[in-house]
């Protein structure tokens, strides 16, 4: 019946890999696949991708999916691509790629951010575009190119996002959807249009940018012959406009209604609240506001830096060859409070939520003889989790604490780690069955263009299932309340040391 009923194809072009999912409209996962692409670092701080690696990655993932038993290539009902939104692909008049695409992880554009903020005012920029201007975003990268490679920028007749570049190669279309420009710092959030003044600051006129004309769930093409050949699929497959990766991950976590909250747990932790409020956080500048891939909804996204990156550093430097599962299992045997040891997990700083402190670095405090590796690990896990409650207060003040939070991505593989977060926050934590939440969000869009789902809500009901709910333990939650007060006292006390010893 499934083969007869066909399947949906969701694709996600991420920072380090393309991920894909083949799923039936009633929610049975037929196959998942991924293909890594290289990040090039020609100089320290530089990070670039070959745009055609993304296209090759998409083709490789589709090839792997349809090579899986039970996946009939001819039975695909619809496809959608979602992607990172920040990089620009520069194309010449004949549609050829002019230069590598500068990644959002590239750190060279700090001076440009300062210039832009000085010129337009940071609050005004946030108010216009919704996004906090930081290095690696669209406009700072264009300003950098205008200064360092003006000829290349002048030769670019068309600038596309990664997703729109791949769509362009598959369908010949030139366009973008209302969610993808949300990290360009060149968009007008409320009008879903390019901002002429900001585009001019980047040295490009809106005529060289794709029109913002699509809704993510809209069918923009029937897959033509050339695209079908590239992907090994039949001609005529309905293709959705697609959208941003974080938006898709939010939908893939089942979050589409106002007040729904989910968080990605990768290198950093990104908290995403679904809202209908179009007012950016321009004065307090704590998070980004962008359109959701669901009608009339937006996402307020707040980032905690250094969560996954702190754990990775710890595992590599102090884990003695143990993997995350082994380290967390050891730590789970230690009582809450880690025997008095406190870790501030700021290996990449604490410039974002909830502390917004410049120049922070990680530290371990309260170390006494008798503290062993499990105490350190537990302190680090607790240090990450202690950042959740103040971040929650900031993202969704006054939210009903019985309403669950959905967590996605790597950290959710550990049951003990999920439970610890539930205990610290006092809020039920849910984890979905499908870990590739951005690809799953894309599959919901694919189902909408295939006519399987009348709405995103229908798609969520059919495809998003929760694997487990972690209920907070009241006694532990009370204990963590005391411990967290202590932790916050320590965070405040050592803030004055940043930039002294480690500069």
């Amino acid at each position, binding site marked *: 019946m499934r083969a007869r009923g066909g399947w949906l194809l969701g694709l996600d072009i991420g920072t380090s890999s393309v991920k894909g999912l083949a799923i039936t409209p009633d929610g049975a996962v037929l196959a998942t696949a991924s293909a890594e692409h290289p990040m090039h670092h020609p100089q320290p701080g530089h990070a670039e991708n070959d745009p055609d690696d993304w296209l090759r990655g998409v083709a490789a993932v589709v090839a792997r999916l349809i090579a899986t038993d039970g996946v009939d290539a001819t039975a695909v009902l619809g496809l959608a691509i979602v992607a990172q939104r920040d990089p620009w692909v520069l194309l010449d008049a004949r549609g050829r790629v002019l230069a590598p695409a500068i990644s959002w992880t590239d750190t060279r554009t700090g001076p440009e951010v300062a210039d832009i903020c000085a010129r337009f005012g940071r609050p005004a920029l946030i108010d216009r575009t919704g996004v906090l201007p930081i290095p690696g975003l669209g406009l700072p990268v264009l300003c950098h190119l205008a200064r360092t490679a003006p000829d290349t920028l002048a030769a670019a007749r068309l600038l596309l996002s990664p997703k729109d570049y791949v769509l362009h190669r598959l369908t010949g279309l030139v366009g973008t959807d209302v969610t993808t420009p949300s990290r360009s710092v060149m968009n007008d959030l409320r009008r879903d249009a390019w901002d002429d003044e900001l585009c001019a600051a980047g040295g490009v006129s809106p005529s060289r940018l794709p029109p913002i004309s699509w809704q993510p769930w809209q069918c923009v093409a029937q897959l033509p012959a050339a695209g079908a050949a590239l992907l090994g699929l039949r001609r005529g497959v309905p293709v959705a406009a697609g959208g941003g990766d974080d938006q898709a991950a939010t939908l893939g976590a089942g979050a589409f209604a106002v007040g729904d909250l989910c968080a990605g747990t990768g290198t950093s932790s990104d908290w995403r609240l679904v809202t209908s409020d179009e007012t950016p956080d321009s004065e307090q500048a704590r998070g980004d506001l962008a359109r959701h891939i669901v009608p009339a909804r937006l996402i307020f996204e707040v980032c905690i830096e250094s969560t996954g*990156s702190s754990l990775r*550093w710890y595992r590599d*430097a*102090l884990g*003695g*060859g143990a993997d995350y599962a082994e380290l967390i299992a050891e730590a789970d045997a230690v009582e809450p*409070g880690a*025997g*008095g040891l*406190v870790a501030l997990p700021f*290996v*990449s700083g604490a410039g974002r939520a909830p502390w917004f402190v410049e120049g922070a*670095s*990680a*530290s*371990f*405090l*309260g*170390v*006494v*003889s*008798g*503290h*062993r*590796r499990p*105490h*350190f690990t537990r302190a680090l896990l607790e240090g990450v989790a202690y950042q959740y409650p103040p971040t929650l207060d900031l993202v969704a003040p006054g939210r009903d604490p019985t309403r669950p939070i959905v967590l996605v991505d790597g950290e959710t593989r550990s049951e003990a780690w999920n439970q610890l977060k539930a205990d610290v926050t006092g809020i039920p934590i849910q984890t979905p069955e499908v870990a590739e939440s951005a690809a799953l969000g894309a599959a919901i869009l694919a189902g909408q263009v295939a006519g399987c789902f009348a709405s995103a809500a229908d798609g969520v009901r059919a495809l998003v299932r929760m694997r487990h709910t972690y209920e907070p333990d009241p006694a532990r939650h009370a204990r963590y309340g*005391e*411990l967290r*007060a*202590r932790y916050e*006292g*320590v965070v*405040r*006390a*050592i803030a*004055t*040391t940043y930039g*002294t*010893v*480690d*500069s």
Partner: protein
Amino acid sequence: VETLVGVDIGTSSVKALLVGCDGTPHAESAVDYPLARPRPGHAEQDPEDLVSSTVAAVRGLVDRAPAAAGRVRALAIVAQREPAVLVDRRGAPLGPAISWLDRRSAAVLDEVCTQVGRDRYHAITGLAPTVGSTFSSLAWLHRNAPDALEAAHRLAFAKDYVAERFTGDRGSDRSTGGRSGLLEIATCDWSAELCAAAGVDVALLPDNGSRPGDAVCRLGPDSARLLGLPADAIVARGGGDDPAAALGAGVIEPGTLCAGTGTASGWRIVSAEATPDPSLRTDLAPHVVGDLYIREAVISSTGSSLRWLAEEVAPDLASAARRAGRNPTADLAVLAASVPPGAGGVVFYPYLDGAAMPRFDADASGAFLGVRGGVTRAQLARAVFEGVAYQYPASVALMRGYGLEVEHLTLVGGEALSPFWNQLKADVLGLEVRVPRIASAAAAGAAMLAGLACGAYATPDDAIAALVAEAERYAPDPDAHVRYLELAAAYDAAGDALAGAYAALARSPA
């Protein structure tokens, strides 16, 4: 030439030295034993480990230099002065000895000292009230485990517990009670008042009327067989480890200084006066020589930080080093030396057991700051070495405040075996570091006491002339010193800021 044996029972190992009366070193051996840490903050030693490790260490000397061991004229044992063994009527221990590193008695000590009066305690003992002292741990036992104290027939200090196994003699000496918190410093008698405050009957304590270097008895056939030494060898009364180390470093003149390096780093000034330090920053204790005293100030957790680093941060290195028969610290030094000064911005505060000299903050605890992505284990290791060395300049300044002219620093103990470590300290201090030929100064001091007991030496000066050889010298590198001055200034400034964090950590419910 006849020979002497000196034994030093430390916190983590027993060290034994076999040396000719003329100063020729024949053999050294060390046997590690575990410090049990059943809970964070607790630290205990099994009394049987002390005995068996002493036997093993002496037998190690015999194995290494059997001919010289056959000519042993005398033997002495010195030891850490805090741990006490409660024994029953038959001499069997009633439980583990609570180590001086143990911190469980902090609250009890506070309470008892308030009852006695801190000034009164200090005036009697010459000591600042210290968690982990015999006084403090006994007071804890009195309140939390009174059964052991009630069942006790008598109390033996670590060294006396071990020596009794070889001699049958239960006596102690003038210097061993020097850090117990139970001794009247002016008279060197036990204080009935403080014993009562701790909840221990003064009658449980040993007779301490004799002096280090007095002859106790001959070893006799059974003990001689056990240890592998001649039966007619004289067992000398030993003493406290730190005063013995001062003797072993040749420091017996009032106003002279040496620094020991063990689990903690004890700095010792010889004094002829039994006047307690009103600032409470130095402790006063009997020397092992004459009617002299030593003033002691301790940098806490120096060696224990390195040991902790080896066990918890680099256990693979530590076990590889042990398999190859090396001291893990030497391998850590190689690791630390592989990265430049400054440790990539990481700093370490070595207050794993609280901070004494130079910060004197009982609330302090250990900390790593400045960790960023990409920081390596080598940088963490270097930060630990540097963090210990950064305690030295302020400590020298403190010593100068007592009127001492410090123009170089004599270092003894295990750390002094590492050239990297000595050079780092010289560079941080900007002073020459000198190391005697026998770095195991406490064991050397014990051998000197043995030599005094058997008549090999007529006076302590004779013993020093025979055993303390010209030092190795490490001159500071001027460029490195300038760099470390900057780094240490930043380190101290952040250390000041950390005081607030220590208070926040200590106040709270962990």
